């Protein structure tokens, strides 16, 4: 099995180009690639489109800033596609003042749209959102006796994801609820960079226990965040 290049977070961040659609893993900051995010903030890359579960937590009074929140603050995105912005008042402000275009997508629909992109599907039919603003502009399709919305696949240019452990081939194992959108995003993007806490030899992960097969992964970054070890 071919080894994947191990690069530093700064080099990973430099691979993200203005205009890119960037999928970033994490759920309110749990399972986010924090080292790469920090370098991307430093670099000041902007005009990105964010695909993420949420815009994480920005609570400066309590010094609580998680996940993609520093990128929101740095105005890295002119478009944001997420399910939730309630814990980041800066996203709310940018939206209200017309600086950033925010599209809210139901969380399960977001997960399926990302998965569909990775799985080569054009989209999926979901009952979620029927009868709400979410249905606006979408095709409705009846299957059996139920109405569904056609929700299209949501591919990305770059996935920045976080795993607990990788082997040198890029097989990934996630930890607990830090898994969330990470393996789906690895499937859906052209370039996939994973930040890991632990890097092990090829053959040391049980092939029945791989959460994300190596073929989805392009580059590996060692996490500088707390708990990161080589």
């Amino acid at each position, binding site marked *: 099995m071919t080894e994947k290049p191990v690069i530093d977070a700064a080099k990973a961040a430099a691979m993200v180009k203005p205009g890119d659609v960037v999928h970033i893993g994490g*759920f*309110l*900051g*749990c*399972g986010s690639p924090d080292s790469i995010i920090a370098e991307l903030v430093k670099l000041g890359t902007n005009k990105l489109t964010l695909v993420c*579960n*949420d815009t994480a*937590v920005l609570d400066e009074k309590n010094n609580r800033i*998680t996940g993609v929140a520093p990128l929101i603050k740095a105005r890295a995105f002119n478009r944001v596609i*997420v*399910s*939730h*912005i*309630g*814990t980041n008042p800066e996203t*709310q402000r940018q*939206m*209200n003042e017309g600086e950033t275009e*925010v599209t*809210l997508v*139901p*969380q*399960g*629909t*977001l*997960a*399926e749209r*990302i*998965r569909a992109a990775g799985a080569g599907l054009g989209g999926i039919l*979901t*009952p*979620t*959102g*029927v*009868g*709400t*603003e*979410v249905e606006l502009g979408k095709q409705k399709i009846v299957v059996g006796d139920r109405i569904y919305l056609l929700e299209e696949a949501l591919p990305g240019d770059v996935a920045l994801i976080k795993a*607990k452990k990788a082997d040198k081939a890029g097989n990934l194992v*996630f*930890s*607990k*609820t*830090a*898994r*969330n*959108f*990470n*393996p*789906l995003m690895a499937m859906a993007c052209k370039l996939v960079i994973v930040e890991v806490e632990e890097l092990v030899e090829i053959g040391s992960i049980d092939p029945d226990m791989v*959460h994300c097969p190596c073929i989805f992964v392009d580059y590996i970054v060692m996490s500088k965040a*707390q*708990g990161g070890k080589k």
Partner: protein
Amino acid sequence: MIEYKENKEIIAKRIAKIFKSGEVVNLGIGLPTLVANHVPHDVSIILQSENGLIGLGPAPAPGKEDKDLTNAGAAPVTILPGGAFFDSAMSFAIIRGGHVDYTVLGVLEVDQEGNLANYKIPGKMVPGMGGAMDLTTGSRVVIAATTHLEKNGSSKLKRRCSLPLTAAHEVNYVVTDVGFFEIAGGRFHLREYFAPYSIEWILEHTDADIVVDENCKEIKL
């Protein structure tokens, strides 16, 4: 004369009595989270958390928090023996696929058609729907948990929601701090009222059409 006093514990207590052992329940952030504290000891429900687990346990002891183990509100949690973790696609396959028996949500408004609004006040506050739209669409039974009145005294139960909907025609039960309502045929059906409130008080303080169930009874919680 009865004076209304907000009482979230009463709501949580009543909802906690609904479940049977083995049932799968998703509790929303805020008021619904309180429900977990009131489930009887001889009832073993399975809590699902949409960020990726079943078998949600209580909060960890201080110092025992795990950065990789949180609930959908980013609070540190634990997992019970027999629980499992999964990715967001599987989490919502469970939810949308009808494998969650009950979802309990907080609301901004709920109406007699079973509509629910809780994700957006246009021009004012837009937290986003998160997983709420999938949870209301997919769960077998949707329970709205809400104080009966707003701070200003107006009714949270409406004839028709005025805010953008989270769910259209999906709510089954509404549990407030004054009573237990079932939604059917475009009406709230009052099944229980909680002491010290009376049927009359409820009819007077609810801005919606209420049918008083023929078996409607007073409950002390």
